[in-house]
């Protein structure tokens, strides 16, 4: 092969000077620098966004998969002293809607939803007509119904968890337990008084959700929910039931307007039962009247009448003004102080102090009371807790009315000695009687169960005075006293009746409040029971006839429930107990 070499003349093509396009050096450098600067700017911006000022993007990112979830906490239970439920919360669902979205439902869907919720379609349409972005369709729907609704997936219909409070014992304990509003806030009774400890504080957690909405990871700190604490009341639901049913029966039997009953443990000051009539069902609070809602035993005052007499006698014994068997002339059953006349329902002749209490003589009590200075009497009333709220922390408890002694007139001092011109609540009266049950100490009351040693009360009377008073109280509830119907088979009981006129518009009307407050058993008191019946109109109006039998039934039932051995000298009971003193 012949290789022809190129002639070596001229320039090679690539070296042709015509094609020498040499750029000026500064131009290429400028472009390079500009590009570099643009890149630097991008890097700087990136650095700024990602590192220095990253909140905004972080937030945008988080909002796509991070969620804060509330962890709900339940409200504490209210139980009685034996752990029986009185109030308990259980989860329910509330069904809510975004009305704009929900209006896209077609007619059959609407009918189906309305049927599931137990509403009619027009009602449902009414709720959805709202121009707000949120409306409750129905609250407190049972979880089963809510699940069925969730399956159907109605447009614009959503659910939310909430709690509903149930009261298994219903109307029986309505006044003491009270109730809550829709937002789990106590409105009445113990629910209100113990709101702070019953209330559960919801917690929260931050989580990452995946595309399907299920939680895949916990991020950040979780705040655990704090469930509300349970409240254990001193109430004994058995005794409460006895008190409630007996009171209800008596109010109906005597066609009375209202009534109240209180049972207190004499040793500890715990409130074992508190019943009122009329009452209401806390599970269904439609059409409630104020009369039903009132916790009369704590919030209403009345003039107690003769129930007050034992205190007058006790003060006289304490001060040594009289002895147990000092004879007082009560004839002729009337006496005049100033322009007023005090009279006895049944005239008596000469009575001992014990008989004055037994027969409930107004004249006798007045004669005893006029031996005191007003200050002395006021101080006794005050130390018995009259004129001051019982301090239970219960909403609406009243002070009662005890006027300052400086402007007492003699007639007022006289009427106060037998319980007129002084107003007390039934709870105050029951509490005052703890001095007779507890060797002269006025017990502080407690709504909640006392587990440690019971507290000591302030001493009002000496044990000797109290011993004598107990005998008088037992006489009053005996065959010769004013309340033979208050007796309890198998037990020795004592107490005092009260039949007081009601004040209406500043004058005494011919309407009565029949009451009985007593202690049992007399040999070693365990209970103080107070019963009050407002305006009995049928079957008598005397405390002994109306309130006495209720006392007897409640006390008998309560003593049996508590397993207190009988102390009455009945042959069978004595042979059975056989263990000596009780």
């Amino acid at each position: 092969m012949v290789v022809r070499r190129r002639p070596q003349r001229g320039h090679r093509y690539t070296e042709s000077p015509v094609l020498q396009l040499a750029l000026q050096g500064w131009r290429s450098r400028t472009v390079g620098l500009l590009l570099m600067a643009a890149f630097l700017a991008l890097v700087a911006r990136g650095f700024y966004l990602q590192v220095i000022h990253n909140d905004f993007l972080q937030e945008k990112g988080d909002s796509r998969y991070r969620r804060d979830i509330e962890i709900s906490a339940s409200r504490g239970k209210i139980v009685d002293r034996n752990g029986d439920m009185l109030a308990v919360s259980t989860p329910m669902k509330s069904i809510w809607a975004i009305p704009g979205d929900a209006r896209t439902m077609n007619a059959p869907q609407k009918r189906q939803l309305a049927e599931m919720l137990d509403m009619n379609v027009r009602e449902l349409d009414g709720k959805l007509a709202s121009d707000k972005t949120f409306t409750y369709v129905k609250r407190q729907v049972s979880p089963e119904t809510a699940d069925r609704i969730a399956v159907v997936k109605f447009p614009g219909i959503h659910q939310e968890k909430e709690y509903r409070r149930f009261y298994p014992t219903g109307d029986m304990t309505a006044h003491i337990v009270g109730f809550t509003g829709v937002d789990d806030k106590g409105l009445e009774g113990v629910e209100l008084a113990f709101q702070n400890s019953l209330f559960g504080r919801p917690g929260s957690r931050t989580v990452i959700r995946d595309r399907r909405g299920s939680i895949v990871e916990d991020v950040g700190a979780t705040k655990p929910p704090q469930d509300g604490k349970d409240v254990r009341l001193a109430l004994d639901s058995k005794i409460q039931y006895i008190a409630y049913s007996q009171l209800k029966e008596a109010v109906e039997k005597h066609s009375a307007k209202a009534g109240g009953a209180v049972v207190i443990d004499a040793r500890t000051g715990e409130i074992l039962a508190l019943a009122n009539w009329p009452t209401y069902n806390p599970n269904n609070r439609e059409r409630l009247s104020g009369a039903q809602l009132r916790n009369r035993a704590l919030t209403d005052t009345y003039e107690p009448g003769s129930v007050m007499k034992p205190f007058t006698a006790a003060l006289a014994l304490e001060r040594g003004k009289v002895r147990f068997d000092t004879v007082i002339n009560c004839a002729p059953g009337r006496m005049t102080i100033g322009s007023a006349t005090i009279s006895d329902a049944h005239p008596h002749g000469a009575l001992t102090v014990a008989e004055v209490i037994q027969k409930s003589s107004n004249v006798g009590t007045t004669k005893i009371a006029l031996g005191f200075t007003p200050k002395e009497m006021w101080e006794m009333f005050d130390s018995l807790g009259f004129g001051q709220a019982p301090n239970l922390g219960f909403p609406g408890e009243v002070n009662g009315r005890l006027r300052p002694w400086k402007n007492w007139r003699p007639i007022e001092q006289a009427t106060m000695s037998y319980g007129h011109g002084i107003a007390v609540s039934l709870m105050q009266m029951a509490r005052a009687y703890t001095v007779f049950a507890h060797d002269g100490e006025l017990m502080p009351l407690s709504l909640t169960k006392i587990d440690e040693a019971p507290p000591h009360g302030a001493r009002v009377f000496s044990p000797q005075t109290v011993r004598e008073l107990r005998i008088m109280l037992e006489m009053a509830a005996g065959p010769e006293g004013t309340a033979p119907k208050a007796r309890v088979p198998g037990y020795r009981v004592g107490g005092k009746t009260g039949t007081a006129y009601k004040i209406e518009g500043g004058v005494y009307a011919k309407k009565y409040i029949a009451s009985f407050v007593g202690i049992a058993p007399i040999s070693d008191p365990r209970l103080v029971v107070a019963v009050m019946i407002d305006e009995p109109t049928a079957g008598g109006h005397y405390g002994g006839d109306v309130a006495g039998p209720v006392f007897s039934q409640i006390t008998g039932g309560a003593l049996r429930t508590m397993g207190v051995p009988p102390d009455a000298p009945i042959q069978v009971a004595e042979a059975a107990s056989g263990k000596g003193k009780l």
Partner: protein
Amino acid sequence: MLRFNMILLLVVVICALGVVTSQHRARKLFQALEAEQERVRQLDVEYGQLQLEMSTWATHPRIEKIARDRLHMVTPDAVGRVIQAQAPIKKGAR
């Protein structure tokens, strides 16, 4: 040198895959935990409902009604009643 780099690259890839799998497993386990916790909550709710139901069945008015009407029970007279004192005597008794 090149071979060493390749080995390192391989190790890095394996580690990365390991991270992915363990993350996946962690999420699986977490979901299982969530499900169990949800079950705990549901059982709690059910327990509460059963307690409520029990106390509704056991209300004193209902018991008394059944005792009197269906079982024809009566309260014994005081005469025929024997009360045994609790032994040992409860704290607080005198």
